[in-house]
């Protein structure tokens, strides 16, 4: 009886999270049936006509499907890679700073952009990459012609990735800084005695020390491979760069909400979820094998 009571407390603590999950994640899953219907809001899910795999078939028919998938993966992978490497390098550099107050204030400053929404940052970046903005002024100073960055299919993805990394690297570095403090100082002393210089210590003590963390974070990120970041792209893109910038989420938004094709948009969303699920499961296997860590 006593034992049970103890259990109950934990269950109660978990309850709000579970209720949240059920209301916002499990119940809406019922709406997935729309993917197999010709959904008409007035008729509801029970009254709409069933069309089988029609919506999925159309997905393969439209010429943009591959383009959108490719854009999504390219942007997401770029973000994952750059978003992993940059924070690590930054954390390592910051870790070498001796002055405590400088270290703390730099950490706080680079952490700040993480709290700004893309709606605000987009306005800033639109001005930064303007024809008459600082970047183009700099280029013109060097004798180059100005570039319409946000209207250029050559530059758009790079800008999306770079600005996303800029926004998030301070936040990302925190985890690595925490991992760095967990490394046994004795190892550094031993390395010094063996005659290792700073770079050697970095290579042979620090990096192996935070490797499990790097593996874990990267594995978790794999689930995001189809999330290229809707709010950022939506705030910055335009029809000229649809070719390189249109990703699954922006496409679903335009088709589903603007074009009111609820069924088709649901079908795309469902496909995306299935692929993401497979990726997360394989990431779990991968991290189990490589870092001997399970996510779940």
């Amino acid at each position, binding site marked *: 009886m006593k034992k049970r009571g103890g259990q109950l407390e934990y269950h109660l603590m978990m309850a709000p999270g579970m209720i949240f999950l059920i209301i916002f994640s499990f119940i809406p899953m019922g709406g997935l049936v729309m993917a197999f219907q010709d959904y008409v809001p007035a*008729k*509801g899910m*029970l*009254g709409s006509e069933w069309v089988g795999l029609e919506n999925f078939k159309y997905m393969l028919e439209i010429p*943009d499907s591959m383009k959108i998938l490719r854009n999504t993966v390219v942007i997401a992978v770029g973000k994952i890679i750059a978003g992993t490497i940059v924070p690590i390098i930054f954390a390592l550099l910051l870790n070498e700073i001796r002055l405590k107050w400088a270290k703390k204030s730099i950490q706080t400053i680079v952490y700040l952009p993480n709290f700004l929404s893309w709606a605000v940052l987009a306005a800033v970046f*639109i001005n930064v990459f303007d*024809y008459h903005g600082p970047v183009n002024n700099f280029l013109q100073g060097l004798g180059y012609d100005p570039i319409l960055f946000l*209207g250029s299919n050559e530059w758009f993805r790079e800008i999306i990735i770079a600005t996303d990394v800029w926004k998030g690297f301070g936040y990302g570095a925190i985890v690595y800084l925490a991992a760095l403090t967990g490394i046994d100082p004795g190892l550094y002393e031993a390395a010094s005695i063996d005659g290792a210089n700073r770079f050697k210590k970095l290579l042979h003590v620090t990096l192996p020390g935070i490797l499990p963390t790097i593996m874990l974070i990267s594995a978790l990120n794999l689930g995001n491979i189809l999330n290229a970041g809707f709010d950022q792209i939506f705030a910055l893109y335009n029809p000229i760069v649809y070719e390189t910038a249109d990703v699954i989420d922006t496409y679903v938004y335009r*088709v589903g909400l603007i074009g009111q094709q609820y069924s088709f948009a649901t079908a795309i969303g469902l496909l995306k979820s299935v692929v993401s699920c497979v990726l997360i499961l394989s990431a779990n296997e991968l991290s189990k094998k490589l870092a001997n860590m399970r996510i779940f």
Partner: protein
Amino acid sequence: MKKKIFSIAAVSLMSFGVLAGCSSGSDSAATTKIVATKEELKPFGKYKETVTYVVGKSTPGIAKLPKGQTYEDNAYTRYLKETLNVQSKNKFEAKDGDAYKQKVSMAVASGDLPDIMAVDASTLRQLVDNDMIADLTDIYKSSTSDQIKAMYDSYDGRALDAATFDGKLMALPSTQNANVPTMLWLRKDWMDKLGLEAPKTVDDMEKVLTAFIQQDPGGNGKGNTVGLTLSPSIGGMYGSLFQADNILQTYNSFPRQWIEKDGKVVYGSTTAETKQALGKLADWYKKGLIDPQFAVRKSIEDLIISGQAGAYFGPWWTPDYPLNSAKQKNANIDWQPYIISKDGSGTITAYTQNPVSEFYVVRKDFKHPEVLPKVVSALSDKLRNEDRNYQPVVDFIKEGGDRGAPINLMVNFNDATAQMYKNINAAVNGEKDPATLSLDDQSSYEKIQGYLKDPAKADANQWSAYMSRMVGAKLMAGTKVNEVHPVFFGQTKSMKLKWANLTKLEDEAFMKIVTGQKDINYFDTFVDTWNKTGGSDITKEVAEAIKQK
């Protein structure tokens, strides 16, 4: 959870209703008998005994009714009671848009219609096919006031045609009056500074724009002056700001419209004329005459307000927005409207918009179908003119009330803007008593008088009232237009799934061609892809839909 139960209940109700609807539809060979007397059938004839009619009431998002009034009992319903002896009851009250549409579809599915309600074009067709609504042909003739008839007639029959099936008038439509021609707005102060003449043709316009960007009359600094601002949609958005339609039309290009060409229905964005017109815009973009950043521009208004831009296309009301803000920022600016035409004659070609927005229908077995035209006549004619000083309604408006009328059918003359100009102008010239102007026009009239007293000292609001009502509307009223009527405004079956993608294709292609990322021959590739990915099927469906009508 409550919502869920409701929706389940609603759905089961509806499936039941479909069956009920069918059964009641089949046995209705007899037409509705009119019970009203000859006197009562007259537009403003008063009933001896109160007639109660049930409506599906559409409401604004936030109810704005003076204290103590409801949608069933307010200044308007009391007016109708006094003049016609009719009283409305609301079967349902729902917000405009989706909420209202849902109530209507449930009513239709269950076969339990209110006596009068508003529906869209596809629901109207469904109701006609299922024989659920009354034929209004005779009633329209007997119970509509002359003024309302004149309003409908000002659309050359296009408004009532949309509601006519097999020669029978099945609904009264709300009308949408003309908002074109849009015109070219230019910085007159810049033109004066550079000694430029008013442009009459597209080539004239090119000269003005070239002078603007090369000589920088606004002192914005080299390369900062923008010639023509342009919306990312480029064209085809009826009566909107920043469209290039005025240029496209000189090529007979009507993008985003279903038009008839050589007896066939075509989508305006795919014609050879549009290819040519886009070529012209691409040429201008290359020369720097069009905003080089229009593709990524988030606020065109900012360019105009900050004084960087020298030209844009906009309708007559654009002095109110965004020029009013520009004038507030810099009192010395002078924007003036011009009409550019192909041959410089001032006569232009322009496409028209859908003349109707929604349709009011009467339930088939309702004993008093004449209530609809009578109420419309009372509200849109008698109350607007003869009874314009009816105190309860004046108070209702003063207290910020909105949409008290049980039937929100909007009908106006197609040339309402030109009429507005004529009325205000007559009042300004002392030919018309300002007190006889509508409330809106009266307030414009006062501002215009303020402007005319001393144009140099007038504030931005007085300036924009004058520029829009007296200059813009005058130019619009005086411009001869060869109208091209698009032949289809609805949605076909395949459009539902494929239209969003086709629109994307279109937006992308237009923009790439104009900005020079793709050369003009890419247009053919675009048309080809457009046709292959659903465009040609949809074109066939549209042709079919027109034939049915």
